[in-house]
């Protein structure tokens, strides 16, 4: 937090290195969060560039009442939602904390009566994540999985798992309760696992 205050103060004083540090540190999640809302990568880039300009112009009014990231998230989300609605995507993103839905991707894989696996998972290729990620089809499966997620699940998964934020940071930035954040995270992880299963299970078979 005091790191943020120092950084903001340096940027306000015209320190270009401090500005470059802020951009390097925060750009990735801004882009990914914008993509969760507007979907189109080129439009998300425009949203983020506009959001950056708003952030820099408003930096003098940042009072540190919330964390810098929470404040930045509000700016990029407002911009992305405006663009999404203008583009006809009247998706339920006004509040991330509304209905979390009833779309557990595993629901159909258990017996109705006993709740044991009716379709037990087969094994995966046991290569390390680093090795698997070198394969184009694995990256493509993750990408498809992300594209298919509802905006609120994608936003939570992006910040938690791709960007490494804490649950508390995500709840503050997206205005989510702790329990809804966990439900969204769980469903999003299960959905991505399902996409990966499609490309990794066959490798595991003899």
């Amino acid at each position: 937090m005091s790191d943020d205050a120092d950084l903001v103060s340096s940027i306000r004083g015209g320190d270009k290195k401090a500005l470059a540090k802020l951009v390097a540190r925060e750009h990735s999640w801004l882009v990914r969060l914008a993509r969760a809302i507007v979907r189109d990568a080129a439009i998300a880039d425009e949203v983020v560039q506009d959001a950056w300009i708003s952030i820099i112009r408003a930096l003098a009014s940042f009072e540190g009442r919330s964390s810098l990231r929470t404040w930045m998230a509000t700016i990029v989300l407002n911009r992305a939602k405006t663009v999404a609605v203008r583009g006809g995507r009247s998706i339920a993103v006004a509040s991330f904390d509304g209905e979390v839905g009833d779309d557990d991707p595993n629901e159909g894989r258990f017996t109705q009566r006993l709740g044991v696996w009716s379709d037990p998972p087969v094994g995966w290729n046991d290569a390390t994540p680093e090795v698997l990620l070198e394969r184009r089809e694995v990256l493509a499966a993750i990408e498809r999985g992300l594209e298919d997620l509802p905006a609120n699940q994608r936003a939570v998964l992006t910040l938690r798992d791709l960007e490494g934020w804490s649950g508390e940071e995500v709840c503050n930035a997206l205005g989510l309760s702790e329990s809804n954040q966990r439900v969204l995270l769980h469903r999003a992880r299960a959905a991505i696992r399902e996409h990966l299963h499609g490309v990794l299970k066959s490798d595991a078979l003899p």
Partner: protein
Amino acid sequence: MLCRKAMSHLTDAKEGALTGLAKALFDAHLTVCIPCRRYRAQYESTVDMLAKLPKEEAPSALVDLLAGEIEKKDDGA
């Protein structure tokens, strides 16, 4: 605790939000259930892979653009 319930608790367990009896039943189920252990390993691999995806890089001109905004603001002040 059976498979459906145990697997619905995976994220709560990983986040430390599963406690008491529910945690004990979850742990006990995982000890004896091979398909659930396999699913959990795949869930963990998924989380690992997501964490290792390359970050989005900022365009090289962005810092200059933003520095220009700061200068414009200073000139106008």
